[in-house]
């Protein structure tokens, strides 16, 4: 499949910014010292592609080697594309003791039983994450390396993050993952985002949190320490209280970057001013989507400035609390994936 190799290399060189290209190629380690020195990174990308193509031909590099290069680049830049989260359920007794070699072997073994034509690469990243690159083919075609699926799993946690999952691969991947990690099932965790580090931080609570206290400290700190003695706030206490509630719900310092939150509402319409709609028997279905560059930051400032009501509503505070950004809201039915709260119009 020589054409596919050329195409993959072209795409890679286009996608990797020139400043990072040298470092990525060095990490890849498939070029000899002379070849590396002969690369001139001030040339245009097209010239670089041609040079690399000739180098690859010289070294007889194949598609799998190029896939390695792509994986190195993906691991250095995890915050691209759309990541979806899955959660593993019901661990068995030895789930806590699954370590890397066992996981790798089991995963490859199970997946190859289910699929003939596929290419799997597993690598461990410096921060304990296991990265898996899967290129899928069918019984008639070779693996498609141009559209690989990336899976990131942290061993001994139940969380799996997937990018570019196809519907064909989904059931097979679920089965291979549950067997390899010694669990009994996997479900969608309803959390998605562009930033892998952020959704990981959100789920594993690796951001600065404020714990609820009964007697919270008097409001001082950064609230204008050098305030002019002639300027005084009338409602300073109220503002500090609001700020404290907002920080309790959403945390103190830098927040993980989420891009959106979606609420699927399936509740009865409630508006005292609109009799016709309220009198209907059927539920009113609607979708509410909040999107922002940094959603949690904007929700926190909404709450502390008073735009959102002061004890932060559980609908919003459950985004960081439960680590999800997709909710189904129905009337009065507390269920695992729904919130038993009534919406206000």
């Amino acid at each position, binding site marked *: 499949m020589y054409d596919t190799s050329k195409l993959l290399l072209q795409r890679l060189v286009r996608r990797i910014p020139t400043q990072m290209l040298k470092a990525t190629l060095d990490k890849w380690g498939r070029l000899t010292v002379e070849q590396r020195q002969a690369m001139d990174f001030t040339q245009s990308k097209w010239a670089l592609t041609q040079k690399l193509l000739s180098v690859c031909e010289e070294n007889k590099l194949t598609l799998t080697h190029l896939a390695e290069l792509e994986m190195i680049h993906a691991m250095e830049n995890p915050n691209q594309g759309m990541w979806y989260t899955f959660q593993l359920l019901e661990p068995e007794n030895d789930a806590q003791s699954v370590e890397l070699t066992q996981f790798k072997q089991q995963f490859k073994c199970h997946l190859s039983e289910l699929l003939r034509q596929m290419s799997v690469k597993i690598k461990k990243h410096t921060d304990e994450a296991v990265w898996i690159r899967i290129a899928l083919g069918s019984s008639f075609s070779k693996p498609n390396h141009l559209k690989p699926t990336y899976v990131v799993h942290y061993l001994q946690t139940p969380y799996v993050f997937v990018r570019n999952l196809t519907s064909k691969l989904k059931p097979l991947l679920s089965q291979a993952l549950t067997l390899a990690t010694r669990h009994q099932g996997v479900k969608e965790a309803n959390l998605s985002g562009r930033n892998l580090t952020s959704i990981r931080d959100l789920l594993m609570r690796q951001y600065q949190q404020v714990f609820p206290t009964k007697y919270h400290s008097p409001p001082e700190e950064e609230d204008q320490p050098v305030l002019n003695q002639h300027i005084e706030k*009338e409602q300073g*206490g109220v503002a500090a209280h609001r700020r404290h509630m907002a920080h309790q719900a959403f945390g103190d310092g830098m927040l993980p970057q989420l891009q959106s939150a979606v609420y699927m509402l399936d509740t009865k319409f409630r508006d005292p001013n609109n009799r016709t709609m309220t009198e209907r028997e059927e539920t009113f279905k609607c979708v509410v989507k909040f999107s922002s560059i940094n959603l949690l930051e904007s929700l926190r400032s909404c709450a502390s400035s008073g735009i959102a009501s002061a004890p932060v509503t559980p609908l919003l505070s459950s985004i960081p609390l439960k680590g999800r950004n997709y909710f189904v809201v129905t009337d009065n039915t507390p269920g695992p994936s729904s919130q038993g709260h009534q919406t206000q119009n």
Partner: protein
Amino acid sequence: MSRLNPFAKLPGLNTASVLLVESEEHFQQSLAEALVEETSVTVNVRLAKSFPLPIENDESRPRIDLVVFIINLTSELSFQSAEASLKYLEPGYFLGKVCFMVTNARSSSVPAERLDAVRRLAASLHCPLLFAEEQTPEGVTNAAERLLTILKAAAGFVPFTTPLYLSNLTRCTLPPDIDQPSFD
């Protein structure tokens, strides 16, 4: 319902106190910092989001000489909050001790009806209506200067001028064609 009373307390010596009421709590901070730089009188600035004011501060609050409502024209909530706060003022304030300040009047997203509504409100209460530009430091100093002129008169520092007299000259009037449709 306790209202703010303009004459219930004694004034401070060479001191003028102004209350800035703004629903967004944004412009009032920079305006306050510009106001306290005045040297000829001591200016005390109190900042609030809306009325009613907390009762705990009633004892320590000085006599408020001027109440300024800062309305951001791009937000309907801002206007409604200011309107709702009016009923917490004693009628004595409306004899020249209340002023309206409007920001973002040049923004294209402002519907013309809102500015008209603010004008009508100011005109019906016989209060001056000032337009301020909050995004540049010059705009803030400008607004502070004009506010200081009114504040000095309201606090009694200008001889032969009472706040009622000044408000008669500076109050907002409605243009005669306010009810005609505009050419947008």
